[in-house]
């Protein structure tokens, strides 16, 4: 007999496999169009670019961030930096002031108002045809900007997202995030091919000035302004591309608590933005974003929670059975029985659910490998991938549930709060 939970499992796993197959089909169709350049390139002309760096309590990393921008292989007279201190309480402003002497750097200090207000302040001083933002916990590769600019040869391209890579992963948790970020290079590129990117990440997405001229400045957008601007662009059919070989290194949360906070905010923002832009959903004229990206994001939330519920249910049933046995015959006998178990392949599950789970995990491993392949030139299996699958299976449902809970309560998590709690250690505010 098929139970309700089996039916839900089949539906959710079907949709989850569908998402992975969708990416895979696109990959095999377009893999020759994934451009990964190794060496130094030069452009026929270098358009003016402004990079806005919003910061709040980023004393530890801001220097490295600005220096990485100064090290960009791009003519200095074409590259302007606007550093905005959003009312930091640490030494961020003192560090920023040291860079005031550079002719192409403008620095601002303002009362705290949230990341989007810092970005919008920068936008007011915009006088170049291109503009980007770089979170103050990220560092750019010196070739990144040139590589991104080549994508604007296409007159329809309105924004280009880079490949965000985890900066020096130091523990298992950061290793797991590395695998995840690498995988998202692949999924983002596939979405770019189909015009379905739903986020232009805070670290170093570059926009045409026209985007903000036409569509207006950043919005609060539930603290995920980088998702909102992308959705706003999608609504107006502004093309967003992805440059897989423009690397931006970002510092990722190094503890479960920080990761939990960051992801609760991302997912909260995602859900709220999907609600705000629900008019896009399943409308043919908006294409991939409406028919695939946003629905698959929602599905993945439910799938992760359901999978967790199923694992939890099985785990507690197992524990309950053990306790039942102990209650019936006592601990001594229970231990004796446990010792006598010898493995018989007969008892190995051959239910369809078992094979579907294998398909599901295999598809995720393939996605991880392709992402790694695009980043490093060839697919490489590493422990990070298994850390990712194990850690995220266990932890993700918690932040997903927290985000849903917050949506229901309409309670926002703020990037300021995230940083104040974590002070002096910091956390990135970017959605990948």
């Amino acid at each position, binding site marked *: 007999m098929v139970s309700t939970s089996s039916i839900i499992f089949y539906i959710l796993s079907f949709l989850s496999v569908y998402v992975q197959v969708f990416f895979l089909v696109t990959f095999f169709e377009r893999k020759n169009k994934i451009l990964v350049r190794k060496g130094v390139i030069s452009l026929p002309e270098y358009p003016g670019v402004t990079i806005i760096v919003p910061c709040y309590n980023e004393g530890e990393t801001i220097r490295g961030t600005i220096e990485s921008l100064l090290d960009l292989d791009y003519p200095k007279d074409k590259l302007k930096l606007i550093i905005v201190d959003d009312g930091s309480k640490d030494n961020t402003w003192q560090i920023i002031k040291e860079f005031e002497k550079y002719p192409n750097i403008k620095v601002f200090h303002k009362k705290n108002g949230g990341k989007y207000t810092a970005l919008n302040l920068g936008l007011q001083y915009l006088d170049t045809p291109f503009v980007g933002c770089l979170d103050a916990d990220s560092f750019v590769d010196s070739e990144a900007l040139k590589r991104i600019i080549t994508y604007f040869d296409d007159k329809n391209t309105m924004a280009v997202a880079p490949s965000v890579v985890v900066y020096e992963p130091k523990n298992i948790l950061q290793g797991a995030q590395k695998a995840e970020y690498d995988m998202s290079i692949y999924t983002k590129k596939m979405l770019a091919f189909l015009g379905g990117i739903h986020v232009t990440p805070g670290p170093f997405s570059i926009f045409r000035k026209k985007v903000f001229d036409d569509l207006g400045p950043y919005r609060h957008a539930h603290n995920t302004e980088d998702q909102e601007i992308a959705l706003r662009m999608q609504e107006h059919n502004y093309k967003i591309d992805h440059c897989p070989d423009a690397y931006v290194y970002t510092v990722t949360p190094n503890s479960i608590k920080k990761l939990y906070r960051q992801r609760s905010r991302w997912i909260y923002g995602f859900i709220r933005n999907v609600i705000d832009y629900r008019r896009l959903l399943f409308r043919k004229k908006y*294409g991939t974003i409406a028919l695939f990206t946003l629905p698959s994001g929602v599905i993945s939330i439910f799938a992760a929670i359901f999978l967790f519920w199923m694992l939890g249910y099985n785990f507690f049933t197992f524990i309950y059975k053990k306790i039942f046995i102990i209650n019936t015959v*006592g601990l001594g006998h229970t231990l004796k029985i446990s010792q006598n178990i010898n493995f018989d392949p007969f008892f190995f599950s051959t239910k*369809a659910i078992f094979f579907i789970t294998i398909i599901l995990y295999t598809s995720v491993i393939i996605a991880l490998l392709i992402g790694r392949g695009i980043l490093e030139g060839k697919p490489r299996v590493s422990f990070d991938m298994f850390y990712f699958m194990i850690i995220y299976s266990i932890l993700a449902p918690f932040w997903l549930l927290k985000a849903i809970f917050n949506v229901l309560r309409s309670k926002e998590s703020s990037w300021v709060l995230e940083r104040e709690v974590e002070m002096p250690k910091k956390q990135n505010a970017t959605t990948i």
Partner: protein
Amino acid sequence: MQQQFDWRRYLIVFFITLALFLTAVYLSNYFGNKKINQLKSIQDTISIDILSSETQFSLLSELSCKNVSDSVLSSELNELGKKLEWGQENLSNTDEVTYLRKYYSLLQIKDYLLMKKVSSRCGKKSAFILYFYTKAESCTLCEKQGIVLSTLREKYPELRVYSFDYSVDLSAVKAMLDIYKIKDTALPALVIDDEVLTGFNTIEELDLRIKNSFKLQETMPVNNPKTVTTDKIQ
């Protein structure tokens, strides 16, 4: 620039995903059938063993107990029982498993009758428990009783437990239920040394009864003293 709706991609992906799912279902059925066949083959082996022992026993009769082997090991029957129970819950072809379970019940009765004869004639140390339970409605006490019996079986290899599902549609089992006057309201029920015990029996109570059962046999006169076992039970 308006996005193009590429419905073909969505359709192709749907069919690929469907193919993957059907493969999963096919594999599940394939391995499920292999398991059913495995169960059948185990049952056939046991069936042949029982038949062979019966024949051997009839042939030799009282002449020599030495040659009557303990052909079907208690553990083999138990193993088959466990596998059938697992199959009932985990294999999709439940009709087949139900059929095999009937067959298994029959084998158990045959083994019980034969082993009882062997035991009394040849003085083999053994104890028999007939266990009636139900799967039809949730019977927590039956589950508990099952655990107790499994534990005792581990402790005493000479103990033979024959378990029967009350609701199994088999005349032989129904006959046993009639003989021992077992009602579905009084499950779990046990039969030890022809005494019917209804309701849950703790491990201590049963342990005592099994030991008594062994003692009973030790004091029984036997035809062939050589085969009497005098091992002390722990």
